[in-house]
């Protein structure tokens, strides 16, 4: 099997275990959920060593990795970050997302999942919103440019969710709502709940950390929830 085939198999298995874990968690069976997440993590950790790594001071010209491999690597690091976040291993989660973000940047991939989640994990692990406003704005600008110039990227509902998150963190609630509406329209029906759940975790962390802009983000998030509830979506 090629590396890409192995990755495809791994993604499928990870998806199954993650959803099984999410289902268990929704039912309050946290231990079972964590077991499923650990199995998912294991599937990723079994395959990741086969993937090339980026040099620490990477840039687009300094790496020689097939673009398709880079896409899969970014995806695997992102999946890993998501599983670790569910397992509340936030530092490891942030590191994983950062590895995935490295591939996204080096290859100018249309996805921003890792880059946005690095920022969210930074906030969840104690960074203040004001200290990250520069990087958040930078990713937002890159994403807006991408969405307005790349029709295929604009089809991807996740990018609209990312844009909504970034705008919300920057305090631009109306624009965030606009992006979220597009996200909800385009996405699978199960996707918005996941997004709301992460957003809720970010708000909670900002509040716990006493971030001065926590209230602003919280009220924005409440509006998002309100908007989503109009179409039958409620945070879990």
């Amino acid at each position: 099997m090629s590396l890409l085939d192995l990755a495809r198999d791994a993604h499928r298995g990870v998806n199954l275990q993650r959803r099984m874990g999410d289902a268990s968690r929704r039912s309050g069976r946290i231990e079972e959920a964590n077991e499923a997440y650990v199995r998912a993590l294991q599937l990723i950790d079994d395959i990741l060593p086969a993937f090339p790594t980026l040099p620490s001071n990477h840039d687009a010209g300094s790496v020689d990795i097939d673009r398709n491999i880079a896409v899969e690597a970014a995806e695997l690091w992102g999946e890993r970050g998501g599983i670790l976040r569910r397992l509340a291993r936030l530092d490891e989660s942030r590191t994983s997302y950062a590895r995935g973000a490295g591939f996204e940047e080096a290859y100018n991939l249309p996805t921003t999942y890792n880059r946005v989640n690095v920022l969210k994990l930074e906030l969840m692990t104690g960074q203040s919103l004001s200290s990250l406003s520069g990087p958040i704005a930078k990713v937002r600008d890159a994403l807006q440019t991408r969405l307005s110039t790349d029709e295929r990227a604009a089809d991807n509902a996740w990018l609209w969710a990312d844009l909504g998150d970034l705008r919300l963190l920057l305090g631009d609630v109306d624009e965030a709502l606009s992006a979220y509406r597009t996200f909800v329209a385009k996405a699978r029906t199960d996707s918005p709940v996941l997004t709301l759940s992460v957003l809720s975790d970010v708000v909670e962390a900002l509040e716990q950390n006493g971030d001065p802009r926590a209230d602003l983000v919280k009220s924005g998030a409440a509006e998002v929830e309100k908007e989503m509830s109009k179409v039958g979506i409620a945070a879990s």
Partner: protein
Amino acid sequence: MTDSPDGWTQAVASVCDSSGNVRGTAFLVGHDVALTCFHVVSAAGDGLGIRLIGSDSIDRVLEMDIDEDIDIALLRVTPQPNRPSVRISAVPPLIGDRIRSRGFPRDHRISEYPEGFPLDPTEITGDTVLKWRSRQVKLLVLAGAEAGKGMSGAPAVDAATGSVVGVLRFSETGNARVLAIGAADILRRWPNLNCESAADIPSYETLVSTIAQSFATTAWRTFAPEKMHCVVVGSEASKDAPADERLDALFQDVMADAQASEVWKAFRVATDGRRVLQTGAHRKFPDVYLREQVQIASFNIVEALSNQQSFELAIRIVVEADLALFDVTHFEPAVMLLLGIRGATKRGVTVTSVGGGWREGDPLARPFNLSDLSLSSHSPQLSPFVGEDPRIGRLSKRIETGFTQLARHPAYEDLPVYDSLRRLGSAEAASASIPVDEEVLVLCSYDESYFATWKSLRRALRQALFDKGLRTNIARLQDLPTPQLVSQSLYERVRRCTACVCDWTGSSPSTFFELGVRLAVSPWAAVQIASDDWLSRTTEVESESEVPKLQIGELKELLNPLIYSGDGFAALAISVAKQLIEMRRTTGATEQPVRQSATEALRRVQEPLPHVVDQLTQEADALNHPGRTRTNVPQALFYEIREIKEDHERAAIHRRLAAWLFLEHVSKAGELEPTSEGHRLWRELGDSVAADLFLSDDPSDLTIANEITERIT
């Protein structure tokens, strides 16, 4: 081969009966064919053979094709490489031409003349007419020689060229002259004997075929699942056109071009692994394009109509072909008829192309029910160009795209018929016949000039059927009170109506296309009619009609329509009614030749319906692809409506679950080798369906998800 002036002697053979007695002379004209006189083989009786000069063995005659009227027989013997043969001259001999021959007369023992007795050089002195079997027969006269019994069947060879100008038949004792069957008569009987060189003479089968040689030699004898089969149907307009203006020549260029490998690749993706229903054989193709993997048949429409055998061959080829290219210039009636047969029988790739100066983008009046055909152009470039002919790239891309679409779109169509004939609904009666006392469907022109004819025809036919005790609705498609699309309602009726009348008058391309569909799909056939006035206008040599002249005449011979005159509707209607009643009496069991040919061809090439697992999985993927977990690209058309998306997602889960259960319980895929394709599919589907079920809050969904997960991990 013996094209040299003296080489012909090697091709001469004695004709022996079953006891080995010499009964006459023959000579080889191809690697498995010899000529002699019919009266020679008649005298030799069963079990005859030929013995070549210098040979000890006798080649048994396997079969023969005879013409008693001109006393000639074409014998088939076992083919052997490097066998000597002699060429038949298409050029009539001149008086004074010197002629030689060699044979086995009974008065000259073969032991003394093992290489045959040579006829002294003689010469042509003209021809004479004899009465033979009540017919006048013209024979060549060779003066200055006599030939004994046993020389019959020997070649009359032009001493200068070494080619055969006749076959010795009679010797007039005392007159010192020999009479020979002229080469012209022989070539008239077997036109494919007319070749530049003896080496080019086709096989016995091709020679005795009444099919034009170009068609017979390019048409595949049997469909080979490991090859790509293509056919090019030329229009009458292109019959004598230079190669540059013909679609077949352009297609040959495409398949010889570097881009042919892209066509091959797309064809392979669409077809590789597909199963032929009858034999169960899976079609397998090499990765790399090899010209010998492609069969290209081509024929001009006039050749296809020249006789019943050619017509049936054309139907078979058109039905079997993976790729069919039709020159639809002027939408000629017979081309439309074959196109209708193709559309009704095959979901392959069909390219319709227009020549005659038309180019893509130019305005073009199209038949109303073919208005959405995507037409290609094969008209040559008017101005000089550098590099490759741009038509090659365009046609190549069109074919490649066709196969790519065929591969990814289960309901791919390039003609508007296939699904309309088949998707009639699930009600038991949906495919049932519409009886004659309910409806008589009339296929005809909608041209204003025909309307008066239509009114008279309908009135007369209604009366004639009433007189036979039938009250029915006689209707063209436009007369049916339905809001349904033409393409749906027309072809449903073309299939289901037992009574169908088709009027050729006016040569409407739509009518001939519909007739092709009808003849292919209905065992009830159609009563075909044509006005004598229109027929004579279209088939007259001097006619200025745009309708091609030859094909209407040939079609008339083949399909035998009832001919009516402008004031003879009552008589016509009585004949039509009689035929309709007769069809009813035979309950659709008529052996309708077009349908029979199409059915026989389909039997060899039809692929099975998609496997239930493939179909369900494809449907599920089209509704909610598993890749959406990552890309989240909307698939529902109105994705803003959450209920529609939920419906799609739920329907996708149900289809995947049904597919997985089939694999689990029917295919027992879980018990297969883990490395097998079936096991892999079972595991992947299980992953996918369980993952989606885990999103649900319904306990029963979660139970199923857990059971599947347990089973596959």
